[in-house]
C-alpha cells in the first residue's frame, strides 16, 4: 500500500509510537497516508483507538515478522 510518509517506530515502547505518530501526522495534510512500523505489541490496539478518537482512518494493518505495519489516513 502506498504511503506519503513512513514512520519507523520499531523498538520503541508505549507511549512512544503514539507520540511519534501524532508528531508526524501534525505536519501532514488531510487525506495523506502515514505508514507506521512498530514492534510494540500494544501498538495494534493503541493506534486503532488513537485513529478513531482523532477522526483518522486506519486503512490497513499487516504483520511482517516481528514488525507491525499500519496505514493511517489523516482525517
Amino acid at each position, binding site marked *: 500500500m502506498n504511503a506519503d510518509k513512513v514512520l519507523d517506530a520499531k*523498538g*520503541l*515502547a*508505549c*507511549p*512512544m509510537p*503514539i*507520540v511519534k*505518530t*501524532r508528531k508526524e501526522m501534525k505536519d501532514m495534510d488531510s487525506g495523506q497516508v502515514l505508514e507506521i512500523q512498530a514492534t510494540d505489541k500494544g501498538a495494534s490496539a*493503541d493506534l486503532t483507538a*488513537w485513529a478513531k*478518537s*482523532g477522526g483518522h482512518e486506519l486503512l490497513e494493518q499487516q504483520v511482517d515478522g516481528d514488525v507491525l505495519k499500519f496505514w493511517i489516513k489523516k482525517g
Partner: protein
Amino acid sequence: MTKKTAIIASNGGLFEAYKVFNIATAAAASDHEVSIFFTFEGLNLIHKEANQQLPMPEGKEHFEEGFKKSNVPAIPELIEMAQDLDVKFIGCQMTMDVMGLEKDAFVDGIEVGGAVTFLDFAQDADVTLTF
C-alpha cells in the same frame, strides 16, 4: 470540543512516574488538554534531582532489567515530551511550603497553585485519574 484529562500525582516512586507520564503523554498525543497536579510525594516526579533517581518499590528491583530491555524512555525524557505536548504541571503550594521547597527546585515551566487551581481545571474534565 477538546477533551480534558486531569491527573493527580501523589506518590513518588518510579512506577508511579511511569503511570502518570505515560497516560499524560498518551492523552496529550490524542489531543487532550492535560493538567497534572503534583502533591505530597508526587512532587518527587518533577523535582530536578529526585526525578533522575526515583526508587523502585522495595523488592521489585529486579524489574530494572525489564525496563532496559523494553527500551522504555527515562523519566526526564517523558517529562520533556509531556511538556512539548503542552501538558500543564501544577505543583502543590501547600506541600512545597511544608517541605521547604521553592519553585526553582522543580523542572522549568511548572505552575504553582493550590487545590482550587486543580479543581477548577478538573471540574469539567472528561477523564480524571489519581496515582
